[in-house]
């Protein structure tokens, strides 16, 4: 099971990204462990400067944008 983290201090875009990730996972039928990281101290550990950011198994995939579920699928398989 993949561990997915959405980084962002709770802005609307971060919430949307987390929702889209869940949608993508549901569409693929894969189980994921989804976590929203809202504490800046933890966010900064990943070294990103823009939010929201997507982290898969501890690795930053992208930051500063929201992707739709369709485009997020590739990160979940």
């Amino acid at each position: 099971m993949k561990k997915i983290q959405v980084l962002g201090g709770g802005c609307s875009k971060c919430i949307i990204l987390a929702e889209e990730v869940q949608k993508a996972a549901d569409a693929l039928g894969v189980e994921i462990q989804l976590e929203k990281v809202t504490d800046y101290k933890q966010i900064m550990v990943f070294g990103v400067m823009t939010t929201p950011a997507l982290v898969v198994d501890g690795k930053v995939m992208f930051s500063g944008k929201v992707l739709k579920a369709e485009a997020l699928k590739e990160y979940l398989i």
Partner: protein
Amino acid sequence: MKGKLIIHWSLGLAGIMAWVSLYWNLEALSHLTVQALSGQFSFLPAGGRAFESLAFFFYDTPKVLMLLVSVVFGVGIIRTFFSPERTRKMLQGRGAFTGNAMAALLGTVTPFCSCSAVPLFIGFLSAGVPLGATFSFLVSAPMVNEVALVLFFGMFGWKVAALYMGTGLAVAMLAGYVLGRVKLDHLVEDWVWEIRGGTTGEDAKMSWGERILAGRDAVKEVVGKVWMWVILGIAVGAGIHGYVPQDFFVKILGAGSWWSVPLAVLLGVPMYSNAAGILPIISALLEKGAALGTSLAFMMAVIALSLPEAILLRKVLKPKLLGIFFGTVACGIMLVGYLFNALL
């Protein structure tokens, strides 16, 4: 493949030409529309108040929206050449004045959303960008933005747009310079200094197709968010244009009263999200006697001094520094207001 590319380009070119010719003929078209309406309805005599308001609305709304789409699209493409990581690299270890000037300039083209203000602030500091330059960036990024510039250009003409941009950059540079000079590093929350820069500095290579898509996405996001505020603002502005007597605002918003500038700045702080709607209203006020300096100060305060951003920045700045930061920017904005009230 090549044939397809040529078709794409020629379609794009034809689209741009149609767009431009529509824009150039907008005044005539809107005039005809309002004339036709006036002929249909007896309550709209040509040259009457309702007629004047309607003519204002029918010309300015499509004009501003078309400009907005074009500029946001263009800026969306330009922004693909910049990233916060790249900007940070350019600002690392810069000296006082150059650092502030570069930070203010880069703030205008680096993709920035105020919700990223905190990670960006920490990311800059932890990589050795001076505090003052970071502040310059944080002032100019929201203040000198494409939506404000389009609205200034569309409603006031290029001179005021240039004035806004120039003085906005100057405020960002000066505020950052002053704040950098007085050594306030100890007023940044302590935990910020414990973070030692992770640098995920990959700059993804983009094709032109992707850049154009990024421009399109910017239009969707930005114009999608502000278009109704623009229309609403122009509608109210149109009402003022047609119905409020000339020189009505000279007393309250004119250059004569010294307190009008600080009051304008104070009033501007809570209006953050509606900058796109407020500008057209200001343009109508200006026409009825409000002073340019006061209006500029108000707009700058609306755009640059935002309460949500202050709340976010509180996480990294001790209250005293937050106060000093906003106070310095507010002073800079008031200076601009007084300067233009005195000059014009």
